[in-house]
């Protein structure tokens, strides 16, 4: 047990009680109780009612919001004064970082001391104001920092938009459309439409880089660029020689992208699921590679006619991966639709997922309507999600073939 004098000496060491008159410190120390807390133990959590403030005699505590540590406080520092001196609840959680010894001062004891030692009030108010000004200063600093970061992300967002096609190719007899709604400022999803002149084909790509936020966004730019570059400039034939060239181009683009990322970025274990298709606009022939992606659908008025399942593993992890090439046809009057799992995993306020079945119904119904298909699906999803935060990037592409 600490003696009264020891306790007073300790309290005196904190900035909070430095200018408190001796008699008042002595009175306060008479009311202080010693508390020992083992490392890791929670003292109180944000929102708890509280009537005591604490002084750290030894050890270290962490002030935190859920898992995020806001600040570490050490020997000689005071915390918990807001709830102790007012009717506010605890403004943050506090746990022992190491084994700690604390002095606990109850509200009643503090106010009783202030009542009998009015001169102590001035020093305590000064200490509170000093702390308040520190907190305000720090808050402003953080706001400025957050603004700078926000600005950086906005720049990132603008640059990233340039990695999506600004305009879609005009292909006679076809209507193309694509949409990407990021869950955060920047996205890990991507889509692409581009013509491959040497094959007289249009390329369509949709992909989902694992994870979200900035890391995924950086890799999204890499995946998208390597695939397009592999398809347009890499290793293919100069003249259109036949169907095999489509398959060769698809395989080359996927294989080289995969090998590059799996070997160069091996340590990061980043990967993407990718669907890459090449459509011959005249015939409606579609050759594709589905690298671990949700199966796109081809359908007519009354439903989905076929789905294009995976033909190989996700891109970026396994250097030896091989990609088979699938074959399908988009017939006159039919539509092709592909999406990322942000659409099927989208949650409503009750926490239920939109689901593949519901998406399929919406797409089939939407395709029969007059509005552009993706507009219909987008509004259906927005209605479903309601006011909840969007959980993941939502990306969709469609290609509709006219009747003639």
């Amino acid at each position, binding site marked *: 047990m600490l003696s009264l004098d020891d306790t007073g000496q300790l309290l005196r060491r904190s900035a909070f009680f430095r200018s408190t008159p001796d008699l008042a410190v002595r009175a306060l120390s008479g009311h202080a109780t010693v508390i020992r807390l083992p490392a890791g133990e929670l003292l109180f959590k944000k929102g708890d009612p509280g009537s005591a403030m604490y002084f750290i005699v030894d050890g270290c505590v962490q002030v935190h919001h859920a898992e995020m540590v806001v600040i570490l406080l050490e020997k000689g520092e005071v915390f918990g004064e807001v709830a102790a001196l007012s009717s506010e609840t605890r403004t943050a959680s506090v746990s022992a970082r190491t084994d700690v010894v604390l002095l606990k001062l109850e509200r009643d004891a503090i106010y009783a001391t202030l009542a009998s030692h009015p001169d102590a009030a001035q020093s305590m108010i000064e200490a509170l104001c000093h702390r308040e000004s520190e907190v305000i200063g720090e808050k402003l600093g953080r706001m400025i920092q957050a603004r700078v970061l926000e600005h950086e992300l906005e720049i990132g967002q603008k640059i990233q938009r340039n990695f999506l096609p600004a305009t879609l190719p005009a292909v006679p007899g076809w209507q193309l459309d694509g949409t990407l709604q990021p869950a955060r400022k920047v996205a890990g999803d991507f889509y692409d439409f581009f013509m491959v002149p040497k094959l007289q084909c249009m390329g369509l790509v949709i992909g989902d880089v694992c*994870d979200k936020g900035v890391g995924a966004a950086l890799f999204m730019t890499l995946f998208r660029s390597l695939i397009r570059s592999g398809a347009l400039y890499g290793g293919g034939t100069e003249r259109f020689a036949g169907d095999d060239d489509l398959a060769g181009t698809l395989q080359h683009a996927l294989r080289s992208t995969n090998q590059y990322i799996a070997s160069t970025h091996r340590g990061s274990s980043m*990967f993407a699921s990718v669907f890459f298709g090449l459509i011959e606009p005249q015939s409606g022939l579609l050759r594709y590679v589905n690298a671990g992606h949700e199966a796109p659908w081809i359908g007519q008025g009354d439903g989905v006619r076929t789905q294009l399942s*995976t033909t190989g593993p996700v891109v970026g*992890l*396994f250097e030896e991966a091989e990609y088979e090439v699938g074959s399908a046809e988009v017939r006159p009057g039919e539509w092709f639709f592909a999406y990322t799992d942000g659409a099927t995993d989208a949650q409503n306020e009750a926490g239920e997922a939109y689901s593949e079945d519901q998406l399929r119904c919406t797409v089939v119904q939407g395709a029969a309507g007059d509005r552009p298909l993706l507009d219909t699906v987008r509004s259906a999803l927005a209605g479903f999600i309601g006011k909840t935060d969007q959980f993941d990037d939502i990306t969709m592409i469609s290609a509709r073939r006219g009747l003639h």
Partner: protein
Amino acid sequence: MSNELRIAVSEEKGDTPVTILYVSGDLDSKTYGDLETKAGDLIAAGAKNILLDLHEVHFMGSAGLRAMHAMAGKLKDAGGQLKLLNPSDPVARVLKTLGFDKFFDIHATRDAALKSF
């Protein structure tokens, strides 16, 4: 909410020692760090061959897959291997859809898995 991840460890001493990790719960962006830390500690302590028992894992997110890929890479560098044991149906489906089944050695029984190292 994800289910908390629990990991139990046992050592099989034989001609080729194998460390078995019995994992249960959801392996997702909130929990993959626990698996990475546990595997990192074991590898640092000399484990070369790890068998990951997945029959009590009912959800596998991309973060879990990345953690497995990273583990496999570390073990390969150390001259060992990561193998998988008896994944639950939902996990087996994810492994197949994303093509992990072609690059990971997956066994249905513990004995067969241990013999294969």
